[in-house]
């Protein structure tokens, strides 16, 4: 066969697959390297963090150790430590020989016990046999078998046993009984020896503990050995995910009440819980600026918070958010990517996390002030956001009213059913076959009737609550039904144009109204107003009015002055130009009692009830809290203005004086305002009503015919957990996603942005809230409108940067709570009273005058007037619940004058010019406040006062000598009721102590008043500790010889039994003749009671 010629292009010869293999190999190799890279870096960036951590932290600990060793040495060389050390050494030395002896004996006895008990035929063995046979005998049924076994057992017990003792001697015990006895004796001996050794060692160990705790207490950081332990553990660290598995129902993550928290944050944030304080600077490489690692390795900045919220229980993400399970990149873990709904809260908004569980707390932590989230809550409430936006927990009264009305309806129905059922039972009973059955049925009928009485009483209770709630309902803005009585007509359109032009700090937002809208709205408001004229008043003394205004406490809520000159609080209106807008007569009525309404409002008829309605029924036109039933239908009326402004119990003349002063506050004359008679045009009224409805003015103001309108805004309770797609960025979505190109152009609005003009992308909740609050109509940009009603309605609240940050924080934290109920702060015990109380406290701005949290600054404290006269400030209420009897507090809060007739004064601190006003709290709020103060001081409620022992004549004499001692001249500062003396008094009258003060508190107060009310005029150091008792620091008369009780207690008992007569006598004895001559006016709490025995 001829060979076939090899084809020219034989693929086997000419073609090579090498390039393919090469490519494959390269790809495979690349994949391999990729996989390796991913293993350590790509998918596990936390490994790099842990490597870095290891080197940086151990370097840090090394330096810390040298410093610590040095300071430890210093402490160890200190005389105190040396003394402790000597004590320890002396103690251990003196006990040493006996301790060694005991130890030796114990060792011997131990060895003997071992010899006797262990080994074949020894005690343990034989005892087991005896026990087993005894059990066998007891369970054997036949008595002959029993006897047989008993014989065997006795024989066994009689057998001797030999034991080789530790000293090598062999000892023989003649029977089991002897062996047992010896064994038990040995055991007893060992117990005694151990007890003796323990007694001996106790003082030695105690001294050692003293030494160690002295060292630990005086070291700034950890001790050298503690640091060494840390260093060892960090050096043996192997890279691993650090995960917090919250154990709460962790076994079943699908359960509804499961916490579902698996946080791996600490895989990178390794220093968070370390026992030393790590800063970014300390964690940086030498000479370098803090980098991403250094910032990640810092310890938690607020250890106290971490202690309360144990990380093992809470993890990290419930407070901080972010994606706690993600480990593949920083962005993923922090949740700052588009597929994660809850990105981590950024700096400045951290406290949003608190709101998630603490939405019911107006004040977060009792001992802290200055929380951003707290400011956000306050702003949300004070600025009237809740007028348009529902938010659970805020402005609850209308909702509560509704639910109570429903409950009453249900109860009425229940009552009817009961009656019917009872009738049935009785009818059946009448026809019953037996007496027994008849009685049984009658009993059931009786039970139902009793039940109905309970229902009736419950309904009565609910009616009272309804009344309370009507009283508690407040509006942020003034009652606009009174505009005609109250305002300069021509001022209204000017105000509506831009409220901040007239009053830069007003709560009233700028609505961007067109001239047409302004005309219509002002016409509607004017024409729907009441026309009853307020009573006329004569002009007052403006100079006196000014003094009253500045001293009675008005400035705790109101401010005066503009710009830098502003003085006073921001809670209520700035009054710098009030004279341009207000009507004098109305102002007098307002100052005298702001709650006084022109006409009561009947929510049932939905109208304001006037004299004509009362006349028809033949009843006088009188309405107040005691006359609050509608003459037409008996329903509960709104008899007060819905304002939080209290009554200062001023006389009418004083009110006239203050109003006269206020009317002088103006920049131009009221007559300078352009004529606005168009407001009387009836055609404008309907149009105005439309706009008022559109803008939701009734959210903050009372307006005729619009009392029952609902809120116009969206509910914000869970605004922070809305998916970002549901936040309407309108045409700015693109701009927000890209970042840069800030859409807010108005310089004033631009200055409101907390972070300044946007540079980074801001398509998230924070960006939305901040932009919306800075310029609420920003999303109108680029749109074309056919009609004004298509534009965004939200007005500009003219907030500052800080305020927007606070509100944004508040809104970010407003979330549907993803955590199980056990994680949410909804306590049912005394802490609930605290929660509820803060709402009332904040509602009426109690903190404008009173300090309730140590360190909290009140508005009055900041006024120039009080800088040199701090004793003229209202009392601090840091321990109020422990100080006063809750029953007294209830009386006081109802009527702070503590007197029904003479009300133009303070009930307790008559020497203060600043006045505790009458807030006319409802029963509901009174209860909340009293419980709040008791709870805040952890006092039992109800309070049962302790019996005050009656002092003997001798004790009275002794107590009197303390009371009037030159070393503690009590009556020098405390008021006595003598007007001449009381001019310089700076403390309350002792006669008011009984029924008001709790004796325990009084004692504590005398011992260290500075620790109860820091800065008080009452000095410390009046008593000293001597032989386990509190003894007066000054000289005491000889009668105290041998008196071995607390002098403080004696004085307290004396004060609680003090009579007016006794007090006058003591005062006159102190060289103040006037006090003896002038009898003081009767004091509310002082009359009656036990006399002091003489």
């Amino acid at each position: 066969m001829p060979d076939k010629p090899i084809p020219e292009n034989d693929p086997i010869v000419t073609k090579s697959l090498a390039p393919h293999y090469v490519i494959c190999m390269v790809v495979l190799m690349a994949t391999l390297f990729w996989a390796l890279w991913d293993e350590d870096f790509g998918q596990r960036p936390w490994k790099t963090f842990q490597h870095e951590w290891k080197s940086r932290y151990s370097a840090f600990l090394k330096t810390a150790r040298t410093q610590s060793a040095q300071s430890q040495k210093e402490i160890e060389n200190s005389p105190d430590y040396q003394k402790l050390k000597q004590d320890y050494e002396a103690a251990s030395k003196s006990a040493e020989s006996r301790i060694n002896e005991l130890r030796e004996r114990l060792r011997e006895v131990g060895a003997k016990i071992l010899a006797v008990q262990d080994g074949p035929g020894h005690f343990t063995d034989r005892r087991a046999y005896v026990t087993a046979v005894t059990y066998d005998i007891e369970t054997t049924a036949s008595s002959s078998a029993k006897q047989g076994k008993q014989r065997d057992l006795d024989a066994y017990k009689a057998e001797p046993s030999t034991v080789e003792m530790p000293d090598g001697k062999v000892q023989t015990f003649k029977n089991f009984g002897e062996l047992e006895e010896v064994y038990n004796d040995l055991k007893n001996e060992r117990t005694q020896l151990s007890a003796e050794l323990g007694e001996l060692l106790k003082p030695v160990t105690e001294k050692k503990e003293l030494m160690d705790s002295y060292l630990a207490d005086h070291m700034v950081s950890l001790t050298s050995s503690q640091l060494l332990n840390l260093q060892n553990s960090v050096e043996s660290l192997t890279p691993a995910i650090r995960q917090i598995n919250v154990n709460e129902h962790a076994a079943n993550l699908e359960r509804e009440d499961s916490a579902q928290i698996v946080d791996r944050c600490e895989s990178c944030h390794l220093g968070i819980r370390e026992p030393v304080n790590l800063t970014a600077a300390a964690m940086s490489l030498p000479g370098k600026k803090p980098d991403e690692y250094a910032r990640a390795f810092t310890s938690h900045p607020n250890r106290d918070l971490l202690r309360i919220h144990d990380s093992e229980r809470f993890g990290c993400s419930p407070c901080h958010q972010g994606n706690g399970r993600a480990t593949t990149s920083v962005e993923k873990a922090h949740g700052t990517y588009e597929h994660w709904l809850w990105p981590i809260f950024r700096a400045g908004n951290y406290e949003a996390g608190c709101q998630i569980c603490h939405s019911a707390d107006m004040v977060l932590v009792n001992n802290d002030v200055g929380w951003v989230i707290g400011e956000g809550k306050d702003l949300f409430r004070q600025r009237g956001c809740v007028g348009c936006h529902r938010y659970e927990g805020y402005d609850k009264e209308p909702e509560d009213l509704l639910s109570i009305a429903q409950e009453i309806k249900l109860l009425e129905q229940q009552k009817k059913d009961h009656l019917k059922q009872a009738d049935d039972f009785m009818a059946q009973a009448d026809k019953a076959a037996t007496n027994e059955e008849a009685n049984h049925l009658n009993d059931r009928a009786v039970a139902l009737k009793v039940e109905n009485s309970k229902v009736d009483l419950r309904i009565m209770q609910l009616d009272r609550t309804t009344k309370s709630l009507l009283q508690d309902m407040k509006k942020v803005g003034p009652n606009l039904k009174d505009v005609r009585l109250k305002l300069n007509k021509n001022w209204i359109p000017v105000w509506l144009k831009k409220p901040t032009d007239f009053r830069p700090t007003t709560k009233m937002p700028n609505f961007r109204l067109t001239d047409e809208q302004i005309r219509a709205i002002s016409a509607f408001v004017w024409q729907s107003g009441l026309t009853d004229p307020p009573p006329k008043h004569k002009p007052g003394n403006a100079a006196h009015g000014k003094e009253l205004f500045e001293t009675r406490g008005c400035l705790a809520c109101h401010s005066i002055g503009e710009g830098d000159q502003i003085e006073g609080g921001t809670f209520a209106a700035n009054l710098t130009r009030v004279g341009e807008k207000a009507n004098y007569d109305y102002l007098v009525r307002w100052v005298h009692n702001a709650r006084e309404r022109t006409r009561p409002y009947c929510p049932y008829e939905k109208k304001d009830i006037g004299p004509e309605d009362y006349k028809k029924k033949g009843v006088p036109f009188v309405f107040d809290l005691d006359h609050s039933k509608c003459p037409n239908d008996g329903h509960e009326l709104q008899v007060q203005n819905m304002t939080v402004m209290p009554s200062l119990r001023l006389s009418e003349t004083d009110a006239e004086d203050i109003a006269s002063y206020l009317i002088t506050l103006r920049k131009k004359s009221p007559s300078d305002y352009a004529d606005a008679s168009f407001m009387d045009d009836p055609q404008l009224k309907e149009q105005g009503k439309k706009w008022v409805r559109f803008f939701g003015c009734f959210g903050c103001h009372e307006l005729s015919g619009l009392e029952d309108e609902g809120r116009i805004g969206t509910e914000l309770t869970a605004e922070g957990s809305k998916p970002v797609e549901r936040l309407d960025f309108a045409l700015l979505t693109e701009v927000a996603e890209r970042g840069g190109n800030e859409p807010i152009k108005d310089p004033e609005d631009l200055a409101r942005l907390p972070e300044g003009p946007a540079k980074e992308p801001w398509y998230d909740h924070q960006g939305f809230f901040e932009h919306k609050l800075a310029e609420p109509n920003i999303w109108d940009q680029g749109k074309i409108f056919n009609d004004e009603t298509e534009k965004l309605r939200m007005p500009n609240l003219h907030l500052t940067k800080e305020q927007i940050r606070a509100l944004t924080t508040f809104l970010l934290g407003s979330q549907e709570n993803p955590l199980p109920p056990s994680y949410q702060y909804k306590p049912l015990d005394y802490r609930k009273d605290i929660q509820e109380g803060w709402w009332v406290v904040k509602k009426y701005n109690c903190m404008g005058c009173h300090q309730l949290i140590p360190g909290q600054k009140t508005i009055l404290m900041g006024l120039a007037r009080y800088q040199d006269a701090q004793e003229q400030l209202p009392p601090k209420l840091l321990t109020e619940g422990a100080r006063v009897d809750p029953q007294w507090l209830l009386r006081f809060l109802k009527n702070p004058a503590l007197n029904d007739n003479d009300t133009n004064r303070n009930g307790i601190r008559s020497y203060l010019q600043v006045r505790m006003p009458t807030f006319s709290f409802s029963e509901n709020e009174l209860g909340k406040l009293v419980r709040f103060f008791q709870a805040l001081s952890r006092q039992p409620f109800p309070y049962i006062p302790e019996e005050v022992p009656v002092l003997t004549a001798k004790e009275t004499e002794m107590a009197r000598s303390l009371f009037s001692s030159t070393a503690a001249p009590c009556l020098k500062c405390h008021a006595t009721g003598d007007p001449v003396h009381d001019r310089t008094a700076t403390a309350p009258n002792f006669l008011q102590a009984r029924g008001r003060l709790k004796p325990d508190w009084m004692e504590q107060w005398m011992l260290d008043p500075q620790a109860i009310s820091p800065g008080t005029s009452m000095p410390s150091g009046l008593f000293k500790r001597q032989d386990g008792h509190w003894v007066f620091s000054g000289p005491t008369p000889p009668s105290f010889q041998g008196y071995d009780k607390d002098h403080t207690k004696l004085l307290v008992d004396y004060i609680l039994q003090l009579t007016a007569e006794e007090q006058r006598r003591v005062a006159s004895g102190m060289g103040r003749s006037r006090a003896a001559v002038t009898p003081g006016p009767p004091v509310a709490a002082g009359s009656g009671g036990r006399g002091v025995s003489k």
Partner: protein
Amino acid sequence: MKTKTWVTILGMPVACGFVLLAGCGGKKEETAEQPAAAPAAAPTAAPVDPATVATVAGTVKFEGTAPAGAKIDMSQDPACKGTNTAEALLASGGHLANVFVYVKDGLGSRTFDVPKQPVTLDQSGCKYHPHMLGVMIGQEVKIVNSDPTTHNIHPQPKDNREWNESQPPQSAPLDKSFAREEILLPVKCNQHPWMKMYINVVKSPFYAVTDADGKFEIKGLPPGDYTLAFVHEKLGEKDEKVTLAAKDNKTVDETFKP
């Protein structure tokens, strides 16, 4: 096959490896713009050389008519038998007393030993003596009650801790000190509302209080540029710059207006 191919074949993964290694060779470390270790150029705290120290002295004048000292009504406590004129503004013959003068600035980071000797604050005649007191941080203030009545001493500081202690007649002196610098720290007695004085807590021993003739003198200052502050409780603060050479004797006068 050509060598080039082989080089490519073997080289590629190696190159890949290098690229990868380079890629994961740790993050670039940011270099600090300023080394954190080097502290700001502080003036060297040279010890004061007693041979070169300078003195600054002067008079504080009051321009205009001084208001007559307000009368104090001490009748509320018969045990108070002091002079009944308030001390808030004491100016006789145009000289202003009770002005606190101290070196506010220019001493750099120098620290000074705290004198072991306490300064005394006496209460007699229901008045404080002195009315204007200077004390160094940490230095003891010994408070004495020479009156037959009880006083309470109540400092109301801004930057120090507040306290309020009772001191009966003939009781032991109170020893107190203040930890932080504070000028015009008011001290009062709550039982005698007119009793008021000021403690000035300073860092250096270079301070003085003007006497009845308005005169003051500060000795022992090392040469340098200083800011002298003149502080009066009612008239406020005035600052003067002064440069002292070695062994200088300079006069710095100051004038306050009502």
